[in-house]
């Protein structure tokens, strides 16, 4: 499972956890998030801006 981080505010999307509040179930891969996904915390960085931080 991979983790992707917002370069602006450090919000991290961890595919193994998903994001309950946003409605992404655990196991939802980052690449499967909607194309218009934007950072849920700062809203000023988009899917293409996210950086993969580490994989297990």
């Amino acid at each position, binding site marked *: 499972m991979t983790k992707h981080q917002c370069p*602006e*505010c450090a919000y991290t999307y961890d595919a193994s956890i998903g994001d309950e*509040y*946003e*409605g*992404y179930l655990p196991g939802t891969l980052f690449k499967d998030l909607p194309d218009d996904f*934007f950072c*849920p*915390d*700062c*809203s*000023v960085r*988009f899917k293409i801006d996210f950086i993969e931080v580490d994989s297990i």
Partner: protein
Amino acid sequence: MHFIVLIAAAWWISINQLDWWGYLSLSIVAGNISGLGINTGHELGHKKGKFEKTLAKLVLAVPFYGHFTIDHNQGHHRDVATPIDGSSSRMGENFYAFVCREIPAAITRSFKTENIRLQRRKQDFLCFDNQIFQSYVISTILQGSIIVMFGLQIIPFLFIHNIFAWLQLSSANYIEHYGLLRQKDGLDHYERCKPHHSWNSNHVFSNLVLFHLQRHSDHHTHPTRRYQSLKSYDDLPSLPNGYLGCYLVAYIPWLWFYIMDKKLLKLSHINGDLSKVNLDPRKKMTLIKKYQEYN
């Protein structure tokens, strides 16, 4: 704290036989205090913690503006300084036209945003997890109990209070991005919001009252940064006065256009090029005719 102000004002009205003038003034003053509350709600709503988000819902509930956090964080910050943003004013658009466009746009965009989230969670739009309704419920309880406590005569007070709180927010939104436009860097993708996409002001009084909200460029470049650390850059779009002074100018459309249109076109990244300005489509031809000499 804002709850107390509202209830105290309502109580004052109920025990004193105010003439219409006193009633109106008190309603407006209370509305403006709640308008400052929206500003507090703005700060809290940007925080990541659940506790702060709850406080934001509470304080925004006072003037019945609970959709603000969602619309602002996930709508305005994403779309700022583009024609699709209801909360970015366009060149040639007067304050009153802006208000009529902004307030409904904020409500629809926030409902849409929240609906998409709830759909992903396989929940109905009308459910307890709806962040907007949570705040509206608090508003209904608060303003409903004020009506129960002080009688129907208090309804106009609440109405005027809410409107003036909203107007204060709209005033801020009107001056913060007037005419500024992000360029498209892809087919349908706008460039990132940069410091020159916000108007700034650094007057002491506004600094104190508004928690440095008026250092607006930095706020939009780094929305989650704490307000105290918002930096003031040099050579940015700068407003001619503090926020409150600018509000007053904004209420007189011809004066606002007279001062700001020139200032806008003089900005170094625009330099008279109207294609780099967020133009009001209805005023487009007039503005192009008027400012031809800049090109």
